[in-house]
């Protein structure tokens, strides 16, 4: 690449992100305030000024969503933890409406932008004779076009429906379980050919995470008591990949992270089941045995005939995923050693999935919300404080799969979280009972929805509940979506 090409790439990346940020801010503001609001006006002018500058130079400002990549004027936009929410914003706005491309042309004016922004606004208010506002996807199907905008072109494609995506995602999830089972039951060797398949599988899983992140979180609610390591490893893989994506890791790094997470507990194959599944507290000797599984995992991975095919990080993660920030974890090293980044990521994912899973030695599993709260309290001791914070903001205070009691008396499952912290307690939820407690296969509603007056929220979370207490198997609801 020549120097000028490189400069152009950098310029477009910066400009694209800046424009996207302004577009995002304005869209967000439009959902809180009217167009004549001072903040709205200010942000609109800011956006228009940036657009004018770009269009003078480039003649078009074109966002193109291609699979899991967003391009601006032909250049891939690079996202990190600082601006990941912008990618999510575009993805969440575009995908339900089957939009693949948004382009602004010279001549675009304020009114056109206002009309366009408002056309994106979901109907979160009740219409007359409507008890539940429609979902954006439903809206998209009913309103295929966003309207006529002479200087704003939107391109749509015949993309998969939400149901199809979920079905595929579930299929890949179970393929992942199968694949891991093949390794654990030694029907497959850890050789370079099979590891290539593992890479492919991780990549596919990642694509699904980007396309359907909330649903994949929902799938991690599948907890298999008998084959704990199997489910647990896939769940950890999903959560680690999602966190890695948030941090802005490159694709190659993400695959290595995924593989490392996939095999992080392989050392447990060397631990007797009666210790792994012991109902009560472990004695000293049993604890020592359990604490060998990290380096047993390393040994197992080292038996690989083609060690080069496995990312070296997989060894580190197998070894370090029980190490703590305060050095009180295991195994105990001879000398002080820095825990690798991937190990820290997998540790967080591992802990979250472990404590939200019922185990023989634990009376009850933590709810997702309790888990997040507990993990944030352990920042700096158990976990890297910054990484756990990113994880928590990714999962939010009420993660997907949390069972909540609403002020209407309805029970609901969190289906989709919001990326803005003040909105964490206003997720989209699936109603699973009516106000009288009758079990229903209810709609998905937005807790940010307000009544006709626009003043009061229709529904609010009163309390987080334990699913076991009500005999609810959370994963059933997500699997039902994938039928």
């Amino acid at each position: 690449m020549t120097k000028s090409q490189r400069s152009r790439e950098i310029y477009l990346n910066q400009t694209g992100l800046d424009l996207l940020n302004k577009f995002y801010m304005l869209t967000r503001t439009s959902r809180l305030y009217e167009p004549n609001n001072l903040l709205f006006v200010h942000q609109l002018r800011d956006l228009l000024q940036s657009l004018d500058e770009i269009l003078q130079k480039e003649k078009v400002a074109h966002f193109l969503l291609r699979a899991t990549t967003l391009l601006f004027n032909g250049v891939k936009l690079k996202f990190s933890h600082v601006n990941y929410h912008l990618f999510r914003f575009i993805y969440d706005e575009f995908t339900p409406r089957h939009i693949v491309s948004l382009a602004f042309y010279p001549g675009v004016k304020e009114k056109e932008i206002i009309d366009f922004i408002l056309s994106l606004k979901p109907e979160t208010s009740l219409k007359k004779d409507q008890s539940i506002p429609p979902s954006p996807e439903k809206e998209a199907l009913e309103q295929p076009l966003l309207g006529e905008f002479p200087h704003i072109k939107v391109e749509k494609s015949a993309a998969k429906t939400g149901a199809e995506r979920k079905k595929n995602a579930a299929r890949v999830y179970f393929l992942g379980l199968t694949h891991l089972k093949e390794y654990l039951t030694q029907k497959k060797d850890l050789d370079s050919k099979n590891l290539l398949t593992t890479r492919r599988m991780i990549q596919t899983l990642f694509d699904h995470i980007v396309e359907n992140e909330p649903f994949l979180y929902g799938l991690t609610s599948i907890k298999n008591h008998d084959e704990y390591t199997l489910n647990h490893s896939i769940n950890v893989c999903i959560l680690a990949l999602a966190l890695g994506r948030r941090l802005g890791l490159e694709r190659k790094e993400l695959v290595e992270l995924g593989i490392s997470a996939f095999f992080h507990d392989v050392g447990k194959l060397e631990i007797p089941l009666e210790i792994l599944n012991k109902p009560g507290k472990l004695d000293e000797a049993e604890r020592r045995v359990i604490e060998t599984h990290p380096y047993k995992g390393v040994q197992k991975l080292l038996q690989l005939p083609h060690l080069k095919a496995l990312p070296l990080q997989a060894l580190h993660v197998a070894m370090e995923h029980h190490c703590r920030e305060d050095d009180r974890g295991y195994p105990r090293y001879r000398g002080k050693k820095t825990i690798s980044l991937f190990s820290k990521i997998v540790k967080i994912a591992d802990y979250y999935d472990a404590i939200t899973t019922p185990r023989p030695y634990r009376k009850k599993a933590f709810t997702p919300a309790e888990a997040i709260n507990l993990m944030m309290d352990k920042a700096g001791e158990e976990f890297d404080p910054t990484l756990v914070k990113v994880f928590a903001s990714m999962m939010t205070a009420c993660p997907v799969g949390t069972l909540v009691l609403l002020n209407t008396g309805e029970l609901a499952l969190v289906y989709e979280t919001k990326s803005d912290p003040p909105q964490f307690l206003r997720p989209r939820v699936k109603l699973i009972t009516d106000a009288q407690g009758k079990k229903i296969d209810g709609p998905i509603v937005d807790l940010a929805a307000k009544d006709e007056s626009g003043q009061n929220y229709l529904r609010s979370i009163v309390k987080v509940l334990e699913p076991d207490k009500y005999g609810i198997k959370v994963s059933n609801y997500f699997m039902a979506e994938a039928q």
Partner: protein
Amino acid sequence: MSTARKKGDPPVANQPDLLDEATLQQGKELVTWLIKTFSQIKLYSLDHPNVRQFIDTLSQKFGAFFAQNPVLELEVTDTAFLLGDKKVHEETQLIRSLPFFFYKDGVTRLSFHEGLTQDELIQFFQLLEKISHLPPEESDIVVSLWEMDFPHIDYLAPDEFLETKIGQETRVTPYKVARNFLEGGTLHLAPEDQAALQKYAHQRTAGLEGSHPSAGLLEDEELLPSPARFQLRREESDRLEILIHKHRELSQEEETIHLLVETIYLEEKIQPFTQVLQSLSSLIEETLSQGKVTIAVHALDHLLDLEKEFRKTQPEKLLHLNETLRQLKEEKIIPLLIKSLEKMVTPDFESLFHLLEFIGPSSLSLVGRLIDNYPDKSFQELACAFIQKIGLQNLPLLLEIADDHREKTTLVILRTIANSDDPRKLSYLARFLRSRNLHIQLETISLFSSLPDPKAAKLILPLLDDPQLEVRQQAARALVRLNQPSVSEDILNRIQEKSFNRRSLTEKKALFAYLFRLKTPESRDFLKGLLKKPWWWSPATRINPGLWLIDTLKEEDRLEVEDFLNELGLIRNRKIRRALQGLKYKLKLHSHRDKGTGREET
């Protein structure tokens, strides 16, 4: 009539794109050129002018196509590329088929988009070329395409393809949940949950609910973190950047070696311990073969630390560890180093010598080779220091790398030998007395002069007849320093030969000095005789060796000279007499001053 989809037109869902003839033809030509370019790349390198020409042309053709169409979208079958529903390329011989190359890894569609750059095309072909050389079981074009994430090239590879690779024998099937399973029955709230609901309702009625989005969850607010806790502060964001950056900068091998060392330390059972030890040894070998000497050195340092630990507490592990270290030291490291150096990999010099120190004297021959390869000053200095340190442990091996062409190194070797306690050092050094390299020869002679061995002077003596002046002079000086009587007779004879006259003044003075310092009665008598009556010189030539002797005496010990002069007695020759007076004057001047009169007396 078919309708061509043009640039800027949105695709219409669920309707096939219909292409006009012109576009189809253009697409076909483009694909043909794509295939041809790929064939060229398989024959030549990417830098080859032919290949560049093809890529340039292909790039132009793409440009022309994109002027009318935003995308070239090819359906992929096992033997063909299709544009729309028309074949634009077919190759039934699978081994040569580019469509099959993609198809076998599950690709069903390949798209090239407007904006495609030449760089991207080159990277694309580089990728294809790399994959095409790998065995099918070790390659997957989709895995590579995914990682490259080309901005203007995408593909469709349905997930179903994974099912051909996974789950042939065992399958975890998704369990089915009938939707009606989610319905039916009633859930009654537990008393505490009911109470929470009522409390919420009461508080709302009392106007305690705010309009803040998070308000509503009153019961468990203390259990749930506040929104502010989730937001990254600036310094946290910066820390994250550093964390990621550090991760990318880390040497993976180095970290892995550290990890394996810890595993070796922790593992109690011998069999897995030896397996990990073997893996570590292999990793060390691999890093060495890549020229990453610093990493290998760190690994060895770790192992040596472990050795100390195991000596105290774990004898069985110590045995295995020592055996591994022995193999590395004696069998593996040097060949690997030689191999990596042959690949022109320049190692870190300090680490290299650290490693060679670990190996010990058997690395000296390699050092010799390295000295020739790296004229770099810092390297040469390190090499010399290494020789001085390690060479003492095995002088014969050290001698093997001494060479007339390696002057600096050989000089260091000679000094190292001379400083050693080895009883054979005289014979080692003697090999260099006749070196063709003058500096080496002179240094050897000089070193000889510091050796207390009685044979030293005899070995130097023949050099008095060396054709080179510097050698003769150096030899003479050496004899003076050695002060060994064993050669006195020979010296005496040489002085009395007529050829003595042809020697340089330095030689003459040195030989006289030798005799003077010897202090034997014979040498003293001879020297006195020289001053009184140099009978063997022809007066006609007017050469007076006495004068040379007197010149020599000026540089000798004053008291010794005074004693000698006092023994002389009467001197008849006027010239000699005057010269002696001058000598005495010089001595007396010294002696007056010594007495501290401060006055000059003649």
